[in-house]
């Protein structure tokens, strides 16, 4: 049985295996480089003063507190709208819909939405929310634009987890005389909480990273506002202000500080998503 695999064949196999390994190593080290580069360049520029003040023309100093708050407002406002819409759509698809054409139309629409680039969302958001509905450039207009963007994500994760709610639970509840709405409220919705949480985490990640859709809908102001007043006025989130500081103003120190903060937040979001996924999987097995 000696020499069953010829030397040429061996070399070919070795080369293929090496190519695969090399590419994986490349992907990994690239990520590591990006992470380390941004953190090394950014963390020295983060100071308490930067985090806790707003930009002041008098002293010429830059603070990013308004941008941090705007990002938080943006996330909160988007989630408030997108959760009922996305979860409702998913419940409709799995619990109510009987007409195959309606289901196909909704699913096709969701797929289309997830393929549309954010710059187009920004443009339509500007035309519809800012101009047609007369909201002007405001955080609310930006949040509503992001609602449309994140709708497919929340819908899909909820749908996936609705599928794992055993049919027998529903039948049991129906058998005890519960109406459809009662079954949904007491059996179906609590069963899909993991999908809703996953959808939330993914949406937070996307909102944190979004910039093109917000440039013309939420604008680039750095005013310090409360939640409700903030929603009505223009404001830059962290990503938008990174862009403005780097590209328009040449303030690379601030830009890297923001980039480092965004990087850390992205890491946290990824970690949370992984933990949630593991936890929910374990819970399902019980």
């Amino acid at each position: 049985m000696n020499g069953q695999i010829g030397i040429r064949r061996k070399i070919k196999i070795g080369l293929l295996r090496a190519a695969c390994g090399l590419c994986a190593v490349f992907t990994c080290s690239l990520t590591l480089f990006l992470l380390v580069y941004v953190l090394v360049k950014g963390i020295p520029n983060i100071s308490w003063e930067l985090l806790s003040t707003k930009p002041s023309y008098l002293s010429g100093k830059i603070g990013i507190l308004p941008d941090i708050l705007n990002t938080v407002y943006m996330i909160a406002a988007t989630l408030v709208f997108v959760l009922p819409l996305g979860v409702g759509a998913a419940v409709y698809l799995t619990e109510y819909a009987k007409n195959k054409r309606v289901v196909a139309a909704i699913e096709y629409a969701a797929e289309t939405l997830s393929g549309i680039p954010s710059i187009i969302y920004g443009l339509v958001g500007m035309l519809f929310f800012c101009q047609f509905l007369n909201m002007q450039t405001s955080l609310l207009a930006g949040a509503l634009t992001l609602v449309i963007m994140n709708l497919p994500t929340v819908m899909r994760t909820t749908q996936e987890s609705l599928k794992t709610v055993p049919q027998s639970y529903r039948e049991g509840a129906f058998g005890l005389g519960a109406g459809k709405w009662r079954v949904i409220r007491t059996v179906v919705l609590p069963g899909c909480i993991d999908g809703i949480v996953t959808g939330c985490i993914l949406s937070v990640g996307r909102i944190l990273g979004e910039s093109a859709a917000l440039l013309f809908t939420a604008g680039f102001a750095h005013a310090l506002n409360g939640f409700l007043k903030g929603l009505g006025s223009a404001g830059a989130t962290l990503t938008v202000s990174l862009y403005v500081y780097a590209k328009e103003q040449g303030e690379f120190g601030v830009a890297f500080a923001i980039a480092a903060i965004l990087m850390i937040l992205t890491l946290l979001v990824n970690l949370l998503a992984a933990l949630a996924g593991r936890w929910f999987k374990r819970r399902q097995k019980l």
Partner: protein
Amino acid sequence: MRKQKAFEDFVHGIFLILGLVTVGCVLLITLYLVIAGIPAIRKIGILDFLCGTKWASTAKEPSYGILPFILTSVYGTAGAILIGVPIGFLTSVYLAKLAPAKIRTVVSGAVSLLAGIPSVVYGLIGMMVLVPGIRGLFRVPDGASLLAAIIVLAIMILPSIINVSITALEAVPKEYEDASLALGATPVETYFKVSVPAAKSGIAAAVVLGVGRAIGEAMAVMMVSGNAPNLPKLFGSVRFLTTAVASEMSYSGGLQRQALFSIALVLFLFIMLINAALNFFLKRSKEE
């Protein structure tokens, strides 16, 4: 009892409306882009608009030809695919078939971090590392160029390509691989000659998804491509379809503004074509 029924119908109606919101959004976007995009195309003339090679929107005698943007988007995407697909594909084969479980967890974590990094951060790193690098390495006056954009895009589409390819490779029935192994093929040969062909529709879908991501990216590209409306040259400053919309929107008015909407409409048509291709491959991959 009748009251109960009316209530249930009411709830049903509400959920139906929530479900239809998605469809409404797609219609709204399509409608708005068509309504906003058509006037400028009619005024400029569709041939002059699509095939004109000169974009001078703020000149005294303005000229609105978007061929440079279309070509730049096509070349940029093609370049990103040429670099990104081989790397992403081989990484996905490694992760799906070759890697030990522990390494797999680490690399998958890296890939999902890569997917989560905001595009402006990619743009910033591109500005600070790639652009000076290209200037120094190739001795060109300015490193902000099509090449810089291609490299940034190639990195940005990696996670999409890797994730979709892994799903496709993992869906290959184990019997196929077992049969090939039993016939005497080594594992690596099996993966490349049996698993990969069996997953080809899914891998095609991954490539198409990468095309969609690359053609739609705006901010990162805006920060590294120089943004001058030239016909595409590898080391020249260029403007993409996405960045053409973004860069002039804040100060435009009149026909110039309408022309920007028309560019968005052209971009949207590209994306719809890509979506159709994506659906085609995904459906076929499910049937397999």
